[in-house]
């Protein structure tokens, strides 16, 4: 539990960074009304999705033990949170319909995901996913059957210890819960479903109709934000899953009854470092999702050149 305390400062830093770097684009009251309307619509759905995901995750944590006392349902909490956010994004993008008039214009352009993909976030997601896949692969490979016959639920070691009075004695130890196949299989299925939701959300964002040609730049920015939110939601899920997996791994490998192999020591230390960091980063990124970029409409129309300014010199 003490190791989890390390996650708190990382989450705090994430929150501060999200607050400091929060992007707010201000537009005039009569500017780009179509894009502003879509931004509000998708943001509303995003918040609904976030709330639904948070409720589902909280239920999985609070009631998951009743459904499965061994924690397989509880382990799905980060995925449920991410799925809620992604479903909200998908619903918002698919139902966003710009108002069309009698004369309708469109750009002759091919919208691609590559043009609006925030590379940094994509790299962070890819790196996190690689770490999680690696952890789950090691967990599945090193998992052993527990005393109840459940495959891949504990980490076992058997060694021979030379004792002064008894001579060589075979000693065995099993520690769990270990993220072996018992936990990896449901997690893998959930993550594959989540990857499908990410693909659907990205497709929906790229193919959402453009509202108006003069707001093209702002609309592209809005799409980039939406893609960023999708990648962040997926990263929160991956890191939120990786954190507990790494911590349980480090805890099980810390058994000193039998001296572990060098590779086990490396995995144990890496997991001990990665676990709290992953949880903290997930919390920080979640804060970033709540403080998502937004378009603010300036209520007062901008002064026209020559208007008398209430204070100071007139605007030229």
């Amino acid at each position, binding site marked *: 539990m003490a190791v989890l305390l390390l996650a708190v400062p990382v989450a705090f830093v994430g929150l501060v960074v999200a607050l400091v770097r929060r992007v707010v684009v201000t537009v005039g009251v009569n500017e780009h009304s179509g894009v502003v309307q879509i931004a509000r619509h998708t943001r509303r759905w995003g918040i609904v999705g976030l709330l639904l995901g948070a409720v589902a995750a909280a239920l999985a944590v609070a009631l998951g033990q009743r459904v499965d006392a061994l924690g397989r349902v509880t382990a799905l909490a980060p995925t449920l949170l991410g799925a809620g956010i992604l479903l909200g994004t998908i619903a918002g993008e698919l139902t966003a319909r710009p108002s069309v008039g009698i004369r309708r214009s469109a750009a002759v352009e091919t919208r691609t995901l590559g043009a609006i993909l925030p590379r940094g976030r994509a790299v962070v997601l890819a790196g996190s996913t690689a770490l999680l896949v690696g952890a789950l692969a090691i967990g599945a490979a090193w998992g052993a059957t527990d005393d109840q016959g459940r495959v891949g639920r504990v980490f076992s070691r058997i060694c021979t210890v030379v004792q002064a009075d008894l001579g060589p004695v075979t000693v065995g130890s099993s520690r769990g819960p270990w993220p072996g196949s018992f936990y990896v299989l449901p997690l893998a299925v959930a993550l594959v479903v989540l990857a499908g939701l990410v693909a659907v959300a990205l497709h929906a964002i790229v193919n*959402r109709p453009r509202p108006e040609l003069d707001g093209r730049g702002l609309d592209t920015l809005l799409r980039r934000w939406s893609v960023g939110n999708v990648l962040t939601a997926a990263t929160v899920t991956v890191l939120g899953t990786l954190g507990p997996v790494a911590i349980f791994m480090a805890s099980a490998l810390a058994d000193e009854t039998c001296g572990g192999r060098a590779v086990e020591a490396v995995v144990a230390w890496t997991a001990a470092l990665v676990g709290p960091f992953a949880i903290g980063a997930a919390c920080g990124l979640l804060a970033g999702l709540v403080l998502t970029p937004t378009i603010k409409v300036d209520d007062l129309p901008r002064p026209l050149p020559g208007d008398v300014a209430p204070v100071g010199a007139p605007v030229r």
Partner: protein
Amino acid sequence: MTLSTVTVDVLDPTPPYEQLRRQLADLIGSGVLSPGDRLPPVRQLAADLGLAAGTVARTYRELEQAGYVRSRRGGGTRVAATAPSPTTPQRALEEAAAAYLDRARALGVAPTDAVDTVRRLAGG
């Protein structure tokens, strides 16, 4: 980079697929869209213009039959390497004038009155 656009007027008596076909043919014929340039996917252009996907699909089909574009499954629709003879500004103007007269006729305006309107707007 110049942004090429197409516009559809739903009150125009010319069907939307024909309005689109004419504008895209002009863009290709005048060299604004170069050989190999990719046209927007049917669903994307239809959604942007608030039209049915079948309308845009018909436009693309007619452009393909006329040799302006080539469609390949999975590769989208691209401007053909050898497009038909380029549209001259004179020909494009004549097509636009014909569309204007069609609309005037649909509104019950005589061609002479329609020409007078143009003359008045042009300040002549």
